[in-house]
C-alpha cells in the first residue's frame, strides 16, 4: 500500500470509531435536506388567515368579500366590527391582514364619487405581509371595478370593451424560473446548501484539530510529507460529503412522496456545482486552520464565516443593494460563487462565460491551502497553537 492510501486507511479507521463524524458527514446533510424540503409544506403560501371589517354591509360589499375569499392564497377567517378589534387580532397573529369596507363605500361606488378601500397587512413579518399585500391589491382592484362592469354588461357592453376602457394598458407578467412563485422552490435548495457548507467547514476544522496528541503519528504515517498527510486525511470526508450531497439532491428532487422541487436547470449542472462547493469549502476550512492551527478558535471563526453565507449568498437580500464593500466581501465565500452559478443556470438559462468564471474561482480555492501548508507542518511539530485555550 502506498503512503497516501495508508493515511486514507488510517482516517477510515478513525471515522469508523466516531459516531459524531457519521452524524456530521451523513446525518446532518440528510436532515438538512429533509428539513428544507418539508418545512414549507408544499411551498405555496396558502390560506393565510385574514379578517374583514364590513361597515358597508350591502350586496356590493358582500360581493367584494366573496371575491377576496376566492383566492387560494388568503382565507377570511374572522369578521370584526371595528378596525381596532382587527388590529388587535393582527397583533396576536390570529390574522395577518384585514380589509376595511367603509360605510359609504357602496354609495360612492354607485355615484362615482372617489372612495377608498383601505387594507392592512402585517409587515413586521415581511415575507407573509408581502404575500397578503400583493394578493389583496390585485383582488381589491378587480373587485372595485366589478360594479362598473356589471352596469356595462346590463347596457349590452361586452366585458372586453369595458376592460379596454377601464384598463387600457395591461401587463402580462412572467416570473422566470419559478412560474408559480413557490416559496419552497425559492428557498429550499439554496438554504440546504448554506447549511451544507457550514457543516463542511466545521467538520473539516474539527477533524484536523482532533489529531491533537496523535498529530505526530499522523505525520509519520505520511512519511512526514504534509501534502500527503492532508490529502489522505481529507479525502474520505470529501468523498462522504459528495455522496451526501448527491443523496440530498435526490431527497430534494427525486422522492415523489415529498413532492419534489421543480427543477429548471440540469441536475448534472447542480451535481457539478455541488462538487465544486464541497472541495472549495474543505479547502477554505483547511486554509483557515493552517493560518492558526487551534481547533476551538478556528471553529468559532469558521462557524461565523459559514453563518454569514446565509446573508452573503445574496438569496434573500440582493448583494447589489448592500454597501459596495460587501460586494467584494461576499466573493470570499465559496457559497456566493456556488449561488451565482446555480441561479444563473436556474433563472436566466445562464451564459457560460459567467458560469465558468465562478466555477474557476471555486476550483481555485484548492490552491489556497498550498500557501499555508508549511506553516501548518511547523506548528504541528512545535504544538505551539494547541496550548491556547
Amino acid at each position: 500500500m502506498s503512503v497516501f492510501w495508508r493515511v486514507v486507511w488510517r482516517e477510515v479507521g478513525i471515522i469508523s470509531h466516531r459516531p459524531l463524524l457519521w452524524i456530521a458527514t451523513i446525518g446532518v446533510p440528510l436532515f438538512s435536506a429533509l428539513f428544507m424540503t418539508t418545512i414549507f409544506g408544499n411551498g405555496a403560501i396558502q390560506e393565510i388567515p385574514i379578517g374583514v371589517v364590513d361597515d358597508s354591509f350591502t350586496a356590493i360589499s358582500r360581493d367584494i368579500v366573496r371575491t377576496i375569499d376566492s383566492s387560494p392564497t388568503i382565507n377570511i377567517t374572522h369578521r370584526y366590527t371595528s378596525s381596532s378589534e382587527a388590529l388587535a387580532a393582527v397583533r396576536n397573529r390570529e390574522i395577518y391582514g384585514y380589509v376595511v369596507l367603509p360605510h359609504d363605500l357602496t354609495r360612492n361606488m354607485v355615484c362615482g364619487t372617489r372612495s377608498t378601500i383601505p387594507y392592512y397587512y402585517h409587515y413586521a413579518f415581511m415575507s407573509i405581509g408581502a404575500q397578503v399585500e400583493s394578493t389583496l391589491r390585485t383582488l381589491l382592484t378587480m373587485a372595485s371595478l366589478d360594479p362598473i362592469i356589471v352596469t356595462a354588461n346590463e347596457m349590452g357592453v361586452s366585458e372586453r370593451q369595458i376592460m379596454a376602457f377601464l384598463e387600457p394598458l395591461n401587463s402580462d407578467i412572467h416570473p422566470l424560473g419559478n412560474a408559480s412563485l413557490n416559496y419552497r422552490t425559492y428557498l429550499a435548495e439554496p438554504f440546504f446548501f448554506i447549511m451544507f457548507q457550514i457543516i463542511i467547514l466545521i467538520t473539516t476544522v474539527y477533524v484536523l484539530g482532533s489529531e491533537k496528541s496523535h498529530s505526530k503519528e499522523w505525520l509519520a504515517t505520511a512519511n512526514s510529507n504534509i501534502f500527503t498527510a492532508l490529502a489522505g486525511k481529507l479525502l474520505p470526508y470529501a468523498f462522504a460529503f459528495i455522496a451526501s450531497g448527491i443523496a440530498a439532491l435526490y431527497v430534494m428532487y427525486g422522492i415523489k412522496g415529498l413532492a419534489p422541487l421543480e427543477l429548471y436547470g440540469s441536475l448534472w449542472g447542480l451535481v457539478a456545482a455541488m462538487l465544486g462547493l464541497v472541495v472549495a469549502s474543505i479547502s477554505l476550512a483547511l486554509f483557515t486552520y493552517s493560518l492558526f492551527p487551534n481547533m476551538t478558535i478556528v471553529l468559532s471563526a469558521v462557524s461565523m464565516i459559514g453563518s454569514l453565507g446565509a446573508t452573503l449568498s445574496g438569496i434573500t437580500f440582493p448583494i447589489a443593494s448592500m454597501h459596495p464593500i460587501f460586494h467584494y466581501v461576499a466573493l470570499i465565500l465559496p457559497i456566493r460563487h456556488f449561488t451565482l452559478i446555480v441561479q444563473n443556470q436556474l433563472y436566466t438559462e445562464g451564459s457560460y462565460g459567467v458560469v465558468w468564471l465562478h466555477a474557476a474561482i471555486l476550483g481555485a480555492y484548492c490552491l489556497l491551502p498550498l500557501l499555508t501548508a508549511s506553516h501548518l507542518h511547523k506548528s504541528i511539530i512545535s504544538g505551539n497553537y494547541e496550548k491556547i485555550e
Partner: protein
Amino acid sequence: MKKSNNALRLFSIAFYKELWDVATSLSSMILIVGGMVAYGLLYNLLYQPNIVREDPIVVVDNSHTHLSRHLISLVDASPNAEIVAVAADISEARSVLSRGEAEAILYLPHDMDKRIGRGEQSLFVILSTTATFLYYEATVGAIEDAMLALDEDIRGDMLWILPAPLAVALDGHATTEVVGNALFNPTKGYADYLVPAVFMVIIFQTMVMVVSMNSAGRKAKRITPMRGRTIGFGGRVVITLARSATYCTIYGALSLFLIGWLPRIFHLPHLASVWELVAMMFPFLLATSLFGQAFGRLFNDREAPLVLITFFSVGLIFISGISYPLQLLPMGWQAVHYLFPIAPAILAFVELGSMGSSLADITPQLSVMWLQVEGYLILATLIPHDFR
C-alpha cells in the same frame, strides 16, 4: 439555616469558577464578544440599505411611441426600479439578464399604441427573474404603479369606445382607490424586519456554543468546583443554576449593547421598555444556558457540540414563524418550534420591539420559555455528569 448557607456557598463557588473559566478562555471570549459586538455591528451594516431600491431593468421598446416612452419614464422615475439598458430585441435583453446586469425585462410590443387607438386593451410583457423575491416584488410593484397611473390618464380619451349613455355615466366617474398600509413597519424596511430576529439568533447561537463547549470540556477534563465531595441532587441543581447565572450575567450585560443600544443607533424599531426587555430576556437567557449545559453533556470532548449547533442556526429562523406563518408549518415542525428557546424568543422580541405589544400580549411566549427553563434544568441535572 446551615443548609441554605451551604447552598449559597456552593452557588457562589460554582458561579465564580465558571466566570473565571470563561474569562480566561480565548475561544469563549471570541465567541461572546465577537458574536455579540462584531456580529451585531456587521449584520446592521449588511442590511443598512434597509430597502431594495433601483431594481435594474432592461427595456425592449418595439413601439417607439409617445405612450411607450411615457411608460418607460414613469418606471424609471420610480424609486424601486431603474432602466439600466435598452435592447433591440428579446434575445439581446435575455443576454443582458444572463450576464447579471439586469433582473427584469420590460417588453413593449410594436402595436401597443395602435391597439389603444383602435379602442382595444393593449398588453405589454414583464419578464422577471425570481432568484430574489424582494427584487421581483419591487419590479412588479414599480411597473404596475406606472401602468395604473397611465391607465388613469388614458381613460378620458377612451370614452368614445363606449355607447353614449354609458360614456355619459362614466365621464368623470372616479374609480375606487385601493390603499394598502404596512402595519408595524411603515417604511417596509428589510432590516427592520430581519435584524431583530438575527439578534436573537446571534445570542442563542453563540451562547449555546460557549455554554455547551465549556460543559463538554469540563466532562473531558474532569474539572469540578467542589473537589472531593459528593453532591446530592439539590447540590447539582444549585451548581447547574449557578453556571447558568454566570452566562446570564455576561449575556445580560452584552444584550444591553445588542438589543438595547444598537437598535437606537441603526434606527431599528425599539418600542420595548427596558423592563419589558428584561422580563423577556431573563427566561430566554436562562432557558438557553440550561439547554446549552444539557446539550454539552451529551459529548465527551469540548469541541464536539460546536459541530452540531451552527448549521441549524439558519433553520431556526424558519421555525420561529417570522418568515413563514407558524400556523402553516407542517405539524411536526410546529412541535420543534416549542423545543428551542430561540423560536418563542424571536416572536416575543419582534412583538415587543417592532409591534409595541405589551408583556400581556407575549404571555404565551413567556410561558413556553419558562416551561423550557424547567425542562432543561431537569435534563441538565439528570444527564450523567461529574458533579463532584
